[in-house]
């Protein structure tokens, strides 16, 4: 009987621990946790200094508000061989889609490099050309090295170097409101759906 009681306590403790770690069985990974966290807190983009692909310098927060558009943000580095390529072609498609639907005034794409040491504005410019980015729709930018940490932290991006001299990072699309609030984080292939929702929302 005592064993039964103790076992029930142990099981309850275990379920509680698992439930709290998984936010009530909703998630298993830190990536999901980060997405849920951003969706709940809706933090504001940090007002860090960004340099765009043509060398122009902006304050991130001010720039978002000046643009007064929804932003779809992804994080990349130009030397990337794997994930960012998928992100790149996803953004290419999104760009085409935005132009076709005439959404240029409402949505803007932004690729931020987390490798500012290497990705100078000239490198970014080349990269943008290579991807045939239309500056009206799609911008590239890199933060100052000192600001990288706070930027990555706000967006919940983890970057770790891998054995081949590149980086592994969590790839996702971050949806930023014109007010500068981060609304949510979705899979990198979910851009179409976001546009649909945007069109439907009014």
């Amino acid at each position, binding site marked *: 009987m005592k*064993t039964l009681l103790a076992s029930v306590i142990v099981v309850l403790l275990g379920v509680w621990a698992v439930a709290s770690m998984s936010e009530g069985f909703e998630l298993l*990974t830190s990536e999901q946790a980060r997405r849920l966290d951003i969706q709940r807190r809706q933090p504001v983009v940090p007002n860090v200094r960004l340099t765009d692909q043509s060398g122009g310098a902006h304050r991130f927060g001010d720039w978002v508000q000046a643009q007064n558009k929804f932003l779809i943000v992804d994080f990349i580095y130009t030397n990337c061989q794997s994930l960012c390529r998928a992100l790149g072609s996803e953004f290419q498609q999104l760009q085409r889609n935005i132009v076709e639907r005439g959404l240029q005034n409402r949505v803007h794409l932004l690729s931020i490099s987390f490798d500012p040491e290497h990705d100078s504005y000239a490198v970014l410019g080349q990269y943008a050309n290579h991807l045939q980015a239309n500056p009206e729709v799609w911008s590239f930018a890199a933060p100052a090295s000192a600001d990288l940490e706070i930027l990555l932290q706000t967006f919940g991006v983890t970057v*770790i170097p891998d*054995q081949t001299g590149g980086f592994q990072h969590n790839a996702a699309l971050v949806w930023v409101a014109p007010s500068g609030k981060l609304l949510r984080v979705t899979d990198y292939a979910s851009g179409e759906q976001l546009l649909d929702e945007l069109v439907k929302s009014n």
Partner: protein
Amino acid sequence: MNPQTVAGAGLLLMLNIPFIRRIMESDMAYHMLLQFPLILLAGWLLARGFPEPAKKWNYAGVTGLLAASMILMFWMIPRALDLVLINNTLELLKFLSLALAGMALAWSWPLAGMIVRGFFLGNVLPMMMVVGWLYIEAPVRLCNSYLSYDQLRTGSGLLALSIAGSLLWLYAFFMPSNQAGNSEIR
């Protein structure tokens, strides 16, 4: 003091040396497949130095084995593995709970008969298989702090371990059973 206890305490301390800890946690496979079992082992060894908990609270080792499987399950959640790297309280909890699981195993395994052991294995082995498979199959990295290649190796390791465990267990069914487990069948 019991030499086993000393060995256990020593092992636990050694695993906590920042340098060794950093190396072991730098790679997901070392973290799950080396550090975890070593902490469990340390707990197992330590158990000899502590008074055994009252048997009426741990009939046939049920409570202990249940606790051990719960703790193991918790530490197989990818998010937990990620969080210990940035959260020191959780890291401390990891060491304490895994050592506790090791102690629980040391106290409870000899008490348990075929059925309780079977139930424990029937829980833990499929769980390891599931997590291993999950790590191998996941198209994305489940732990943001680890490389996807690490994840693949860890998954394969877990899978191999659980398959080996299952075969060993199956084999035991066919062996003459005069070893432990027969005398105290529960």
